[in-house]
C-alpha cells in the first residue's frame, strides 16, 4: 500500500517536473538513470565490474543516430535498434570476456571499450572527432511530432519508466535470484546444475542493451552523438553513480545518476574540479559508506525498526524514534 502511494507520488512529481526544472537536464538525468540501472544489474546483482560500459552507451547513441539520419524509421524503433546493436556487441564481448574471472574482467572490458572507441573514431559514419551532428527526431510511431522538448520529455519519461520496470522484473524474477546466487557463491550455483557462465552472459547482454537504449535516448534528446559518450570517463561516471546511489539497491541508481548529473552541471564552469570532486566522492563512498545513499538509508530504517520492535514492549518512548 505504502509502495503504491510512493509510486503515485513519484509519478506525479515526474509529470510535473518540467514545469519547474529545465527539461533537458531532467531528460539527461533519466538517460543516466537507465544507464546506471543497467550497470547496477551487472555489478550490484551479478558482481561483474564492467569498466567499459560507455562502449554500449556510445554505441547505442551512434546506431540510433545513424538509423534516424539514414531512414525515416520512427524514433522509438531507432532507440530500440540502438539497444539491440549494443546487446549484440555485448554478446560478442561478453562471450570473449567471460573467459577471465574476477577483477580481470574490469581490465578487459576497459580495453575493449577503448578498442570500440578507436573504431568509432575512424568509422566513416560517426563523424570522427566532430561527432554525429543534426540527428533528426523522427515522428513517434510515425505520426506523433516530438520536435519540442516538452513533448519529448514525456516520451523519455515513458521509456525510462518502462526500462526501470524491466530492470525491476529482471531483478525480482527467478532468474534474478539465480543471478544474485552466482554473485555470492558461484561454485554452489554450478553444483545445483546451473551454468553460471551462461547466466552471467545473459545478464551482460541485458545490461548492454539497456545501456544502448540509454545512449540512443541521449542521442535523440541532444540530437547529436559524440565520442565522449563512448569514452572511458563515462564508464567511470556510471560506476560512481551506481556506487553513490547504492550498489545492488533498486532505486540507488536513480539517486546516484541525478546527484552526479546535477553536480556536473553545477561544476561545469569550474573546469577540472568536476574530475577532482568525482574522485573525492568515489573515495568517500568506498572508504566510509560502501552501501551508498540508498543502502545506508535502508540499513538505518531496518536498524530503527528492529530497535523499535525490541524496545516497544518495554518502553513507550521508543515510538518517538520511529518517525526518523
Amino acid at each position: 500500500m505504502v509502495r503504491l502511494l510512493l509510486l503515485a507520488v513519484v509519478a506525479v512529481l515526474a509529470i510535473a517536473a518540467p514545469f519547474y526544472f529545465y527539461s533537458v537536464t531532467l531528460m539527461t538525468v533519466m538517460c543516466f538513470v537507465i544507464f546506471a540501472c543497467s550497470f547496477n544489474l551487472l555489478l550490484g546483482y551479478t558482481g561483474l565490474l564492467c569498466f567499459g560500459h560507455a562502449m554500449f552507451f556510445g554505441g547505442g547513441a551512434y546506431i540510433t543516430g545513424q538509423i534516424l539520419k539514414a531512414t525515416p524509421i520512427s524514433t522509438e524503433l531507432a532507440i530500440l535498434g540502438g539497444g539491440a546493436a549494443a546487446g549484440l556487441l555485448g554478446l560478442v564481448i561478453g562471450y570473449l570476456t567471460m573467459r577471465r574471472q574476477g577483477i580481470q574482467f574490469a581490465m578487459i572490458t576497459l580495453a575493449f571499450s577503448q578498442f570500440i572507441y578507436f573504431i568509432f573514431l575512424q568509422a566513416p559514419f560517426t563523424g570522427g572527432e566532430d561527432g554525429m551532428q543534426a540527428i533528426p527526431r523522427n515522428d513517434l510511431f510515425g505520426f506523433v511530432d516530438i520536435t519540442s522538448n516538452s513533448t519529448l520529455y514525456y516520451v523519455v519519461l515513458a521509456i525510462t519508466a518502462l526500462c526501470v520496470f524491466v530492470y525491476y522484473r529482471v531483478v525480482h524474477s527467478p532468474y534474478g535470484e539465480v543471478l544474485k546466487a552466482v554473485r555470492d557463491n558461484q561454485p554452489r550455483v554450478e553444483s545445483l546444475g546451473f551454468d553460471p557462465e551462461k547466466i552471467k552472459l545473459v545478464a551482460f547482454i541485458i545490461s548492454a542493451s539497456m545501456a544502448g537504449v540509454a545512449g540512443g535516448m541521449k542521442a535523440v534528446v541532444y540530437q547529436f552523438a559524440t565520442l565522449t559518450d563512448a569514452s572511458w570517463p563515462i564508464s567511470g561516471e556510471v560506476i560512481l553513480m551506481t556506487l553513490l546511489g547504492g550498489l545492488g539497491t533498486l532505486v540507488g541508481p536513480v539517486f546516484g545518476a541525478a546527484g552526479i548529473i546535477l553536480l556536473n552541471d553545477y561544476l561545469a564552469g569550474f573546469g577540472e574540479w568536476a574530475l577532482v570532486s568525482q574522485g573525492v566522492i568515489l573515495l568517500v563512498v568506498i572508504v566510509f559508506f560502501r552501501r551508498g545513499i540508498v543502502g545506508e538509508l535502508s540499513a538505518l530504517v531496518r536498524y530503527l525498526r528492529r530497535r523499535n520492535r525490541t524496545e516497544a514492549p518495554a518502553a513507550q518512548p521508543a515510538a518517538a524514534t520511529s518517525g526518523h
Partner: protein
Amino acid sequence: MFEGISTQLLFGQVLLGLINGSFYAMLSMGLAIIFGLMSVVNFTHGAQYMLGAFIAWLLLNYLGIGYWPSLVLAPVLVAISGMVLERLLLRPLQGLDHLYGLLATYAVALIVEGLVRYKYGSTGLPYDNPMPGGINLGFMFLPYYRLWVVVFSLVTCVGTWLLIEHTKLGAYLRAANEKPQIVEAFGINVPKMMTLTYGFGVGLAGLSGVLAAPIYQVSPSMGSSLMIVVFAVVVIGGMGSIVGAAITGYMLGLVEGLTKVFYPEAASVVIFMFMIISLYLRPAGIFADKESV
C-alpha cells in the same frame, strides 16, 4: 620484399615501437608485481607514471635539478607517495572485495590528474633532451636518447626479473603471492612486504615517467591513455606472470610500430585485436602457467 616502403621508415617505426614497448614493459611489470602480491589492479599506475614525469619537470624548473638526479629522485618520491597511499587507503580495503581496491585507486587517479591539470593546464610541457645528437647507422638515424631509453628499460626489466626470481626477497614475494598466511607464519612481515612491493611497482611507473619526459611532452593525460594499453598488455601476457608482462610489452610495442608502417589505420587498435585473439586462443594468457585466477 616490401617494395615501396623505405628502410628509413621501417627502422624508424621499429625503433619507435621498441621505445613504446619499453614503456609498456616497465609499466606492465609494475602492474603485474602489484597484482601478484596484493590482488589490486592499480588504476593509479598511469597517474603515477605521469607524476614521475611531472616531478622531473618540477625539479628542473623550480630547483634546477637536472635529468640524471631526477632519474633517481622522482621515482623515489613517487614510490614514497605510493607507500603512503598503500598504508592509508589500500591496507584498510585489503579484506574486502578486490573491486574496492581497483575503484579506490581509480578515484585517486582522478584526483591526481584533476589537480595537476588544474595547476598546470592540459597542454604538454616540454622537457629538454639530456642527450642531444645521435649516430647515423647508414640505414637510419639513431638518436642517443632513444637508444638510452631502450637499453635502460631492458636493464631495468632484467634487473627486476633477477630480483624476483633469484633473490631471497623475491622468493618471499613469490611465496607470499601463493600462500600469505604460511609465509606470515614463518615470521615474515607480509603487510610490510606489501607496502614495499607497492612502492616498488609504483616506483617503476615513476621511473618510466622520467624516461618518457624528454620523448613525449609532460602532460596530465599522458598516463591515462597509455594505461589502458598497458592493461591490454597485461591481459595478453597473463595477469600473474611478471616476465610475461615484460616480454609481451616489448613484443606488442614492436607489433604496433610495424603496423604503423604496413597498415597505419589499424595502429591504434592492433594491441586490442591481439588481446581479443589471445583471449580466444589462450584464455589464461600467453605466459600464464596456471589457470586464470
